[in-house]
C-alpha cells in the first residue's frame, strides 16, 4: 500500500472517528483553537507593533543616509581637522547622486546657517535657515500643517518663498496666519507659503520645529555663496539600507573621482543607533510573544495527547482487527497521527475564523492585519502540534501485539 493511499485512508478513518465523538472532538479542538487564536493575535500584534515602530523610526530618519564631509562620530581631534581639509560637498554632487542612485527614493541637498528674521516689529535672532529642495519634506518625513511645501519650480530658481517650522511660525506670528505674509531673512524679503506640522519630541525640539526652509538658489544668492552641503538620501526600503549605503559610497567615490586605494574623502552617516534599538525591542517583544503563545499551545497539545491516548485505548480491539487483517505498524501509526493532525488542523481553521474578526477589532486600537504569512504559520503550527502530541499515542497503537489487542474487551 503506497503512502498516498494510506494518507487517504487515514483521513477518512479519522474523519469518521472525529464525527463519532462529536463532543469530545469539539472540547479537544477548543484547546487548540484557543492556542492558535493566541498565536494569531500575538502575531498580528507583533507585526502591528513592528510596523508602527517602523513608521516612527522612519520619521526620525533611520531610513535616511546622510552624506557629509566627515563622520558624525569623530574619534580624535586629528580626524576632525582632516575632515575639515576635505573638499566641500557641492550641489553638483547632489545632482549626480539623484541621477545615479537606484535604491534611493529621494535625494535632498541641505545647507544651513543662522540669520536674524523680522516680521513687522517682531524679531527673532539666530534662526536656523535651511536651504534645500522640494525633496526635503520626503527625506525628513515632514508634514505640512498649512499652505504647502517648497515647489520644484521655486527650488530651481524662482521667487523668494519660505516654509516655517511650527515653533518659528508661532514665534513670529503668534496666533495669526503666516500664509502670504512677508518676512525678512537677513533683511531679504521672503513670502511664507507654508507652515509645518509640529513634530515635538527630540527631533522637533532639536531644531526642526524652529527652522525656516528656503529654496537653494535664494539661499546661495542671499546668505552663503558657496556652502558645504549635507546630502540626505532616503532609501526606498529600510531593509535595503545596507545595500543602499554600499551603492551610495560607490557613486560618491565615482563623483569625487577617487582612484582605487585612496580613502573616502566623505562620510556616510546614518542613525543606526535607532535601528539597533528598534531591532532589540522588536526582538524582545517577539520572544515574549512566542513564549506566551507557546505556553497556551502547549496546553492544547497536552489535551490532544490525552484524548489520543483515550482514543487508542478504546479502539484497541479495532487496532487488533486491522492488524490481523494485514495493517502494518506504519499504517496504524499514520492512522492515529492523521487523526490528531486533523483535529488540530480543524482547530486551526476555526481559530482563524475567530481571529479574523478579532484582528479587525484590534485594528481600531493598533495597526494589525491578518497577513497570509500569519495564516500559513498558524496552520503549520497547528499541524505540527497535532503530529507532535499525537505521536506517542499513535506509536503505542502501532506497536500493539495483535493477539493482545484482539483479546481486549
Amino acid at each position, binding site marked *: *500500500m*503506497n503512502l498516498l*493511499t494510506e494518507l487517504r*485512508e487515514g483521513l477518512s478513518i479519522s474523519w*469518521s*472517528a472525529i464525527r*463519532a465523538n462529536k463532543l469530545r472532538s469539539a472540547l479537544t479542538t477548543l484547546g487548540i483553537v484557543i492556542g492558535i487564536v493566541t498565536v494569531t493575535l500575538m502575531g498580528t500584534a507583533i507585526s502591528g507593533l513592528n510596523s508602527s515602530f517602523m513608521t516612527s523610526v522612519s520619521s526620525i530618519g533611520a531610513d535616511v543616509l546622510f552624506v557629509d564631509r566627515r563622520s558624525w562620530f569623530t574619534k580624535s581631534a586629528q580626524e576632525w581637522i582632516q575632515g575639515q581639509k576635505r573638499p566641500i560637498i557641492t550641489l553638483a554632487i547632489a545632482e549626480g547622486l539623484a541621477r545615479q542612485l537606484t535604491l534611493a527614493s529621494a535625494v535632498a541637498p541641505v545647507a544651513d546657517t543662522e540669520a536674524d528674521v523680522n516680521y513687522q516689529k517682531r524679531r527673532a535672532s539666530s534662526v536656523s535657515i535651511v536651504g534645500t529642495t522640494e525633496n526635503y519634506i520626503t527625506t525628513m518625513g515632514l508634514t505640512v500643517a498649512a499652505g504647502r511645501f517648497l515647489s520644484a519650480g521655486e527650488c530651481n530658481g524662482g521667487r523668494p518663498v519660505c516654509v516655517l517650522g511650527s515653533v518659528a511660525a508661532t514665534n513670529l506670528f503668534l496666533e495669526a496666519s503666516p500664509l502670504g505674509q512677508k518676512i525678512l531673512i537677513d533683511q531679504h524679503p521672503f513670502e511664507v507659503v507654508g507652515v509645518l506640522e509640529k513634530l515635538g519630541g527630540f527631533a522637533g525640539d532639536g531644531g526642526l520645529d524652529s527652522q525656516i526652509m528656503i529654496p537653494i538658489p535664494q539661499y546661495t544668492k542671499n546668505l552663503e555663496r558657496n556652502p558645504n552641503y549635507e546630502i540626505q538620501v532616503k532609501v526606498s526600503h529600510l531593509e535595503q539600507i545596507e545595500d543602499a549605503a554600499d551603492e551610495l559610497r560607490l557613486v560618491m567615490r565615482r563623483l569625487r573621482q577617487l582612484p582605487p586605494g585612496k580613502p573616502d574623502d566623505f562620510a556616510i552617516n546614518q542613525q543606526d543607533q535607532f535601528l539597533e534599538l528598534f531591532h532589540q525591542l522588536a526582538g524582545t517583544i517577539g520572544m515574549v510573544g512566542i513564549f506566551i503563545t507557546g505556553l497556551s499551545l502547549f496546553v492544547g497539545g497536552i489535551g490532544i495527547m490525552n484524548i489520543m491516548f483515550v482514543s487508542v485505548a478504546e479502539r484497541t*480491539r*479495532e487496532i*487488533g*482487527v*486491522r*492488524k*490481523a*487483517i*494485514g*495493517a*502494518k*505498524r*506504519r*499504517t496504524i501509526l499514520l492512522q492515529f497521527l492523521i487523526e490528531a493532525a486533523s483535529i488540530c488542523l480543524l482547530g486551526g481553521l476555526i481559530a482563524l475564523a475567530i481571529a479574523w474578526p478579532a484582528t479587525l477589532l484590534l485594528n481600531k486600537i493598533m495597526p494589525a492585519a491578518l497577513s497570509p504569512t500569519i495564516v500559513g504559520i498558524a496552520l503549520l503550527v497547528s499541524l505540527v502540534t497535532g503530529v507532535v502530541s499525537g505521536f506517542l499515542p499513535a506509536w503505542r497503537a502501532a506497536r500493539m*501485539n*495483535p*493477539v493482545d489487542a*484482539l483479546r481486549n474487551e
Partner: protein
Amino acid sequence: MGTETVHALREVSLEIQKGEYVAIMGPSGSGKSTLMNLLGCLDTPSGGSYELNGIRVSQMNDNQLAEIRNREIGFIFQTFNLLPRSDALRNVELPLIYAGVSPAQRRKTALETLASVGLADRVHHKPNELSGGQRQRVAVARALVNRPSILLADEPTGNLDSKTGTEIMGLFENLSNNGNTIIVVTHEEAIARQSRRIIRIRDGLIASDERIR
C-alpha cells in the same frame, strides 16, 4: 518469587494440506488458542518452526507477518470483529486496501464476494443494522476477499443461534467443496463433526488426530 515460563504447546507436530477442512478441538487452557494464533501468524513460536506454503513464517518480524496475514490468512472471529462505523462493503474492502488494490478494483471484488455469501442487498448496511448471521457472513466475505491460503475460524458459531450457526456451517461446507482450506477452532463436537479431520489438543499436546467422513 520469579517467573515460570509456561509452554502452552509442546512437541506439536502438525501438517495440514491444501484443501483440507480441519477442526481443532480442546477444552479452555488446552493451548488451542495459542495454536490458532501461531497458525494465523498473529504470533511466532518461542521454539520450533512453522512453514506456510513453504515459507518459514516463524522467524518473521511484525511487518512481514502483517503482510503474510493479509495475503494468506482469512480470519473469522467468534464476535465477528467488524468495524462498527463502516458499512459491510467497506469492511470487506479493508483487506484489499491493505493489499494496495486500486479503489475501483477493490470495490468490484468486495461486491462480488459479498454477493457470493448472499449479501448483495446488504452492502451499505452498518454492522448494527445487520443480524448476527449476516454479520458473520460479512466477516466470512472479508476473510475470503483476498483469496487467502487458509480460512481460520475461531468459534465461528459461538455467538449465533443454532439455526444461523447451521447456515454458517453450510457456507463453510460450500467453501470447502470449492477447494478452500479451512481450519475451525471450536469446543463444540457438533461443529467439529462437520469438518473432515479433527485434531484434539489437551495440555499443550496433540491428543488425537483423526480423519472423519
